């Protein structure tokens, strides 16, 4: 492979050879080899649990001692894996710095920007004036406007993008030779992702730094990396230059990661409306003072109208905080809302909880995280059967309907006795789907049902949803931030931003000619 061929290159900054990480009997990383040169970027790509993050943590000696680490990681003359904590401390930050995924938790909320960035400098014995000048310079470098004014701010007073920039500045403070970026953009909105990656790339070039970019998204690293290592369950699937891998992926797994094809949404004939929203708005009161008087409202969703036909699927797209989940919860009456929610001729907002209960079977919701949406103490049978227990059905009928639902979501019948912890993420999501489908709903609200899953599972779930839509004429409200998935499933798309509807048109039209700049950015980021 490419990187091993020139293994004797003397200029290699960091050489990782035969890295092997074990936890008891489980192999977490198996035989990882790479060389990193100055000014070069290596991307390590893989799904969660593939071992991409712990490989880089091992290099910095940040792993717990319960893990068995074998192999070599040479930085100059030193083998990082054999160094003592004292010696490692001389390397961390100075030679190798790291950026983490979640800027909110990686920055100490009690410290101001000035202290966050300057702490390492002051520890080096720098004077106060010199440190401050250096911090302002760093903030300038990472593209923060008016850096003098930002010095006195706390992390919560910064936007998500600014926080990520502060973290990068913190990592750059001591001019490291190598920067490890662990999913630096995953927690950010699509529009910010490109900016941050661009920033990292330009910083790298101006400083001739080497970078290890860790990501789960192979397409994302295409523009920014020189070499790619594709990992799967601790094993290196494929390794080589970016051009090579993208032009000619050798492994089926790599091809799978590159595959963006979710299929086409089905065509539907004209059919009657089943759901109509009129001026539906969601706002949360902000209470203050002695008597908890409502001071003002936080508006999660501005009044909006929407019509959904039987068998139709509408995608609701937007970044986190745009109000799409609030809308889903409002329609299912799990949170309060204003306006009319007319489902099959009944205004749900006029019903009280008791009147609503018999109607609930008609509209069901599936949540994003398959780990938290199933009660860990109930097995599959109990979970799926819960809704049926509320209807007047005999035990054999219930059992039959559970089998039927399992069949619908393509799970084997013998899964009935399993508990959630015995299932994979995709299987859990299927169980959650079966729990909703067993009631034979007319409307299914899917709140990011695929975003916690890996690509292969995503594809299977989308295919399943499409089939169910066709066979059972179920209508979907499909909430997602991933336009590719929406495109494969929905006839129409509603774009939300900052609680407001940006645009609403048919999927085809949206992709052909988006009405707003924001939609254009979303489409671009999803390509």
């Amino acid at each position: 492979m490419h990187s091993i061929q020139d293994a004797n290159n003397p200029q290699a900054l960091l050489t990782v050879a035969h890295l092997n990480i074990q936890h008891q009997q489980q192999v977490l990383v198996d035989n990882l080899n790479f060389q990193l040169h100055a000014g070069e970027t290596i991307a390590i790509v893989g799904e969660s649990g593939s071992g991409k993050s712990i490989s880089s943590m091992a290099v910095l000696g940040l792993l717990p001692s319960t893990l068995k680490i074998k192999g070599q990681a040479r930085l100059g003359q030193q083998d990082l894996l054999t160094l003592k904590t004292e010696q490692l401390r001389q390397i961390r930050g100075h030679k190798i710095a790291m950026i983490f995924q979640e800027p909110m938790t990686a920055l100490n909320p009690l410290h101001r920007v000035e202290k966050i960035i300057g702490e390492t400098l002051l520890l080096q014995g720098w004077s106060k004036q010199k440190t401050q000048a250096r911090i302002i310079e760093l903030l300038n470098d990472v593209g923060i406007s008016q850096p003098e004014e930002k010095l006195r701010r706390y992390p919560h007073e910064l936007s998500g993008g600014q926080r990520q920039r502060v973290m990068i500045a913190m990592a750059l403070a001591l001019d490291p030779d190598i920067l490890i970026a662990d999913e630096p953009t995953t927690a950010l909105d699509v529009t910010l992702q490109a900016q941050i990656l661009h920033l990292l790339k330009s910083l790298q070039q101006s400083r001739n730094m080497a970078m290890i970019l860790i990501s789960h998204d192979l397409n994302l690293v295409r523009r920014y990396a020189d070499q790619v290592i594709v990992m799967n369950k601790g094993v290196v699937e494929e390794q080589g230059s970016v051009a090579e891998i993208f032009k000619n992926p050798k492994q089926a797994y790599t091809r799978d990661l590159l595959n963006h094809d979710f299929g086409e949404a089905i065509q539907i004939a004209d059919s009657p409306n089943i759901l109509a929203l009129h001026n539906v708005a969601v706002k949360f009161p902000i209470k203050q003072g002695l008597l908890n008087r409502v001071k003002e409202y936080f508006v999660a969703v501005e009044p909006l109208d929407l019509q959904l036909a039987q068998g139709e699927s509408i995608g609701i797209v937007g970044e986190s905080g745009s109000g799409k989940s609030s809308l889903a919860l409002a329609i299912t009456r799990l949170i309060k809302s204003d306006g009319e929610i007319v489902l099959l001729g009944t205004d749900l907002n006029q019903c009280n909880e008791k009147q609503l209960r018999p109607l609930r079977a008609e509209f069901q919701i599936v949540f994003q995280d398959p780990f938290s949406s199933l009660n860990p103490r109930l097995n599959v049978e109990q979970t799926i059967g819960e809704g049926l227990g509320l209807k007047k059905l005999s035990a054999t009928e219930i059992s039959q309907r559970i089998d039927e639902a399992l069949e619908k979501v393509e799970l084997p019948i013998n899964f009935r006795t399993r508990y959630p912890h015995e299932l994979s993420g995709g299987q859990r999501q299927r169980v959650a789907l079966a729990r909703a489908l067993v009631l034979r709903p007319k409307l299914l609200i899917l709140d990011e049902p695929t975003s916690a899953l890996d690509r292969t599972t995503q594809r299977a779930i989308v295919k399943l949803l499409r089939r169910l839509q066709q066979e059972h004429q179920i209508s979907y409200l499909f909430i997602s931030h991933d336009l590719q998935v929406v495109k494969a499933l929905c006839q129409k798309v509603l774009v939300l931003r900052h609680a407001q509807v940006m645009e609403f048109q048919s999927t085809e039209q949206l992709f052909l000619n988006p009405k707003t700049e924001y939609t254009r950015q979303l489409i671009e980021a999803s390509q």
Partner: protein
Amino acid sequence: MSPLMHARLKRFKENQLGFACLIVFTVIFVLSLASELIANDKPLLVKYDHSLYVPVLKSYPETTFGGVFETEADYKDPVVQQLINEKGWAVWPLIKYSYQTPNLELAVPVPSAPTSQNWLGTDDQGRDVLARILYGLRVSLLFGFALTIASAILGIAVGAIQGYYGGWIDLLGQRILEVWGGLPMLFMVMILVSMFTPNVYWLFLIMLLFGWTTLVGLVRAEFLKARNLDYVRAARSLGVEDRTIMLRHILPNAMSSSLSQLPFMLTANITALTALDFLGYGLPPDAASLGELLLQGKSNLNAPWLALSGFFTLAIVLSLLIYIGEATRDAFDPRRQ
């Protein structure tokens, strides 16, 4: 048993001190439950005239053994003992005194120092201290258990309702709890007890009235957290009733933190009962109780065995409970999995 519970049990056993304490405590508890068989003024078994009698369980008139009186036989009476020994034999418990039996054979003034007959001496009415400790421990532990369980049930129910519904119910509940918690419990109990004739049931109700709040905060927090979990929301959207959601989905997950509090609540309740007894507002005067023993120790400073026995009994039992509580808390700690 679920794998989760299995893991907890394993973690509990790994805490050797806690596990040992649990064994010792169980032994003490079982012994105190069998107080009648260990310390009693009646023989366990009497063989008289080719038939067997069990005086511990059944009362026999003195005439059964050839005596004069129609009333129940007084087996401590030398005359009765002689009658039995003539035509058979008697097996006595380890301690030949019940908690109310004065030792009438004492030649010294009461309270008397420990002897081979009264291993921990006698109190100021000539009653055997060891027998009184055994019986007193039983009352304390049973009372403590019942009070703990009752206040846990009440506290969990109130906490669950507050946490699940939130809003005004929660706000109102919290304010009431704050006022209730601000009341000086000991003095309120003393005032209330003195209004009624002291008996175990009244005391239980009154202490429950002021003790049920312990778990409310904990359970409320668990329910506040859990009510927005996706699987609870999913159950709501299925149309499941609130009561079922609370019992099936939230309570089992909230139980672990409550369960680990129980040993500490038990400790507090035993201490509270002892304190009331010591002040004379607790159990009826003739009942055996640890607080009463301590009070005797205070009034008879020249008889240190009274205070020392009371102190060590309480210290040992409460320490055992604390260590058991710590082991339980660690076993239920989700972060140690």
